[in-house]
């Protein structure tokens, strides 16, 4: 009979990556079924509850307390695991950052130490993110909020306050930005150039900026707006301020807008502003058809098309050869994506080819997973239900292992789509990890993309080679990968 053990450490904060590392170590102990080390915010308690490891002990935690929760096969195993967790908590291990007792504890002290500071990058738990953002705004800093789980009303209020102060809020849920040549959070090393990007999607910004880099051009700035900036409630506050900024930025000669399709009223707001710009725009509202665009704007229905439109040239270096399926495999495509935007784009490409798709993050017209029936299944492994309390698949490739092995084992699956994302913040060698899972497994075609550049720490060319040697086909872009999959199952993209 499994036992649930909870302990609280009062007023203890360690960042979520450090905690997840410890959680994984504990969860992998023999006899431990599930483990979580997490701050006691209400959202976090929910996920511990969902994972079946929250007991009355953990429930009593306050938002600033650390909850250690686990489920073990018996009391003795559980107690031993708790003891090990405590040992690891007391010695979280050396990190790269120069942290000592003298490191500032507040934004205020940090700004005193660096009076020229102009940007706060906030990645604290969502419960606390807006308060920290407000403090930063009060000190005259622009803000990038990586944190998610921020209520939309708070996002709206914060962005309005920021706008009144002339300050930019990139986020919440903003995973990528490139400002003044500096890659922020999850971003790739791309050359400086004259193309500006405004994106509600982190991986969208990543693929477009990398395609531009591989074509020999560069980025002036990539401004993240947060996933919901184009919702009716938020009203594109950050997007509009970003357009103003890129209009005024002399280095920027072309602007790319990337988002999922906005609410109609907001689309109009944005496009009216685009119309007033002297610069050419590429509008990539993924999946949107027939947008009435102003004269200085062109539509792109995929990320690859967006890159090609703003570059004025093709980005694919030749057509990939048609790939035959193995005769013993079915004709279903299974997409396992770390990037939510790639998952959405793959669904859109399939829909355009009149193929049925289902997903846990279904785009309009696609079915939810429960109604998958004979549809091609696209999974966003970075979606909330997978990432609450667990590392994001871009940081931790093992998250994809289970679903990948399951896809191999399912004879109905003829093609697997997967995205490997490089750059700062990502895993140091994701291709090696995927290659390890592919090794010795025959079966479905594996069509992969590698989002990155050779200037990234992981070096794109080396990552591509590793995947090709492991038997994967590497497509130039996510849209191309989807097209290759469609071709392989005998359809036309």
């Amino acid at each position, binding site marked *: 009979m499994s036992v649930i053990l909870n302990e609280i450490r009062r*007023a203890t904060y360690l960042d979520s990556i450090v905690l997840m590392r410890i959680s994984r170590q504990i969860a992998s102990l023999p006899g431990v079924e599930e483990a979580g080390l997490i701050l006691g915010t209400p959202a976090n308690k929910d996920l511990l509850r969902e994972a079946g490891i929250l007991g009355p002990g953990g429930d009593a935690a306050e938002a*600033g307390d650390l909850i250690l929760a686990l489920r073990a096969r018996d009391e003795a195993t559980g107690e031993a695991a708790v003891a090990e967790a405590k040992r690891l908590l007391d010695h979280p291990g050396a990190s790269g950052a120069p942290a*000592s*007792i*003298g490191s*500032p*504890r*507040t934004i*205020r*002290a940090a700004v005193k130490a660096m009076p020229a500071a102009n940007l706060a990058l906030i990645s604290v738990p969502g419960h606390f993110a807006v308060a920290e953002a407000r403090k930063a705004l009060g000190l005259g800093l622009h803000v990038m909020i990586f944190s998610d789980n921020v209520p939309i009303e708070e996002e709206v209020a914060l962005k309005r306050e920021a706008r009144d102060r002339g300050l930019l809020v990139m986020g919440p849920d903003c995973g990528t930005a490139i400002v003044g040549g500096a890659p922020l959070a999850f971003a790739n090393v791309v050359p400086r150039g004259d193309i500006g990007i405004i994106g509600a999607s982190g991986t969208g910004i990543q693929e477009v900026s990398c395609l531009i880099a591989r074509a020999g051009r560069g980025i002036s700035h990539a401004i993240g707006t947060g996933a919901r900036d184009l919702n009716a409630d938020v009203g594109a506050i950050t997007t509009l301020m970003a357009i103003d900024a890129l209009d005024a930025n002399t280095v920027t000669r072309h602007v790319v807008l990337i988002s999922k399709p906005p609410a109609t009223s907001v689309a109009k707001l944005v496009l009216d502003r685009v119309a007033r710009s002297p610069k050419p725009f590429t509008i990539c509202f993924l999946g949107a058809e027939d947008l009435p665009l102003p004269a200085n704007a062109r539509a792109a229905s995929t990320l690859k098309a967006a890159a090609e439109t703003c570059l004025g040239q093709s980005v694919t270096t030749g057509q990939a050869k048609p790939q035959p399926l193995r005769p013993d495999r079915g004709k279903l495509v299974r997409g396992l994506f770390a990037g939510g935007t790639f998952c959405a784009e793959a669904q859109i490409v399939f829909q355009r080819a009149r193929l049925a798709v289902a997903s846990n993050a279904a785009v309009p017209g696609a079915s939810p997973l429960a109604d998958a029936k004979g549809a091609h299944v696209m999974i966003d492994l970075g979606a909330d239900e997978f990432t609450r309390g667990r590392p994001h698949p871009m940081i931790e490739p093992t998250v994809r292992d289970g679903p990948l092995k399951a896809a191999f084992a399912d004879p109905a699956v003829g093609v697997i789509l997967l995205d490997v994302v490089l750059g700062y913040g990502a895993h140091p060698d994701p291709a090696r990890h995927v290659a390890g899972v592919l090794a010795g497994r025959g079966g479905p075609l594996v069509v992969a993309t590698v989002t990155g550049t050779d200037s990234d720490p992981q070096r794109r060319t080396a990552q591509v080679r590793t995947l090709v040697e492991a038997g994967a086909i590497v497509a130039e872009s996510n849209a191309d990968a989807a097209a290759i999959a469609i071709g392989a199952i005998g359809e036309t993209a």
Partner: protein
Amino acid sequence: MKEIEEANQEVLRRMLAGEPTLVDVVPGVQAIPDLADHVILHAGPPIGWDRMCGPLRGAIMGVAVFEGWAEDLDEAGEKAAAGSFMFHPNHHFGAVGPMTGLTTKSQPLLVVENKAFGNRAYCAINEGLGKVMRFGGNDAEVLDRLRWIKEVLGPALGRAVREADGIPLKPLIARGLTMGDEMHQRNVACSTLLLRQLAPELARTAKSTEELAACLGFIGRNDQFFLNVAMAMGKALTDPARSIDGSSVVTAMSRNGTEFGIRVSGTGDRWFTAPVEMPVGLYFPGFSERDANPDIGDSAIVETIGLGAFAMAAAPAVVGYVGAGRASEAAAFTRSMAEIVVGPNPAWTIPAMDFAGVPTGIDIRLVVETGLAPTINTGIAHREPGVGQVGAGVVKAPLNCFEQALVAFAATMDIK
């Protein structure tokens, strides 16, 4: 909030504007008329006999015999338990005392006058290191020493200080900070400077060469002699800032071995208390944390005015002594404390931090927000009375005191 910022600036202004001067040494009852028979002032917030720790009880029994209120320690103990003595915090009578910190009618008290505001504060003379009453010592050796201090050293010091027309203390502190002192666990430079300054007057007013030699020897052998002067100075500097409406600045931090108490300017003389924490530090050979007494003493008044652990950057040698890390990390403590105060003290600067002023004026709002509790450098007493000091370490003021104070302070501003 503007009101609070202005009130806090006023509190800091008063603390910084003080002119603390050692003006005299006089018998307790002369400085504090309320020190009648059976009145015993102690360190920390109010506490009754039942809840007192071992060293505090040991000291009380000893001082009762010293003052002639009991024949021996056993009788003293019975009388104490029976309620024959009246216990009050030093702070309630303008005094402070280190460790057990007992103040009674016959003990000579250092008198520090804040010439800028006219107020005075008092502290007994430091007995030296080893087996002493402030660590709960109460045997014949301890009491004999107290008698000598009362009959010889106190009066001699008093004559010398009066002859010198008082010793301004701010310049001494400023010099000591450049010489490796932080005025809590390290006072050797200031003790030496003070002795050097008083030596001619001590000589001129001595009753005999023997007596002079004994006094010079006693002071000269005690590296911590200046601690008590610094503490009285701290009280003299904070008292004028004690009741400014709307100020969230701490005016006292103090421990009685059982509870830690703080006072905040905006809430006047109210104590906010919580159980003391255990010091963490290094032990003298043969001792360990098993032997340690919980945190005790009024000496945290020194941190309250920006010295002690707050000035750790001036005293890298202390870091190792209190077991707080590497000497090269001393500045980290001072930088940390800078996050919870109103501002730096331009008169007391630390060379190793490019002459940054010591962080002064603890703001309870900042303590609660950051969770950074004031750090205090402290001696560690043996939990059994009479054994003495067993080590030195750092201890934190309990956050709970500041949280309670914040709620009470907010209420004075009509905020709930």
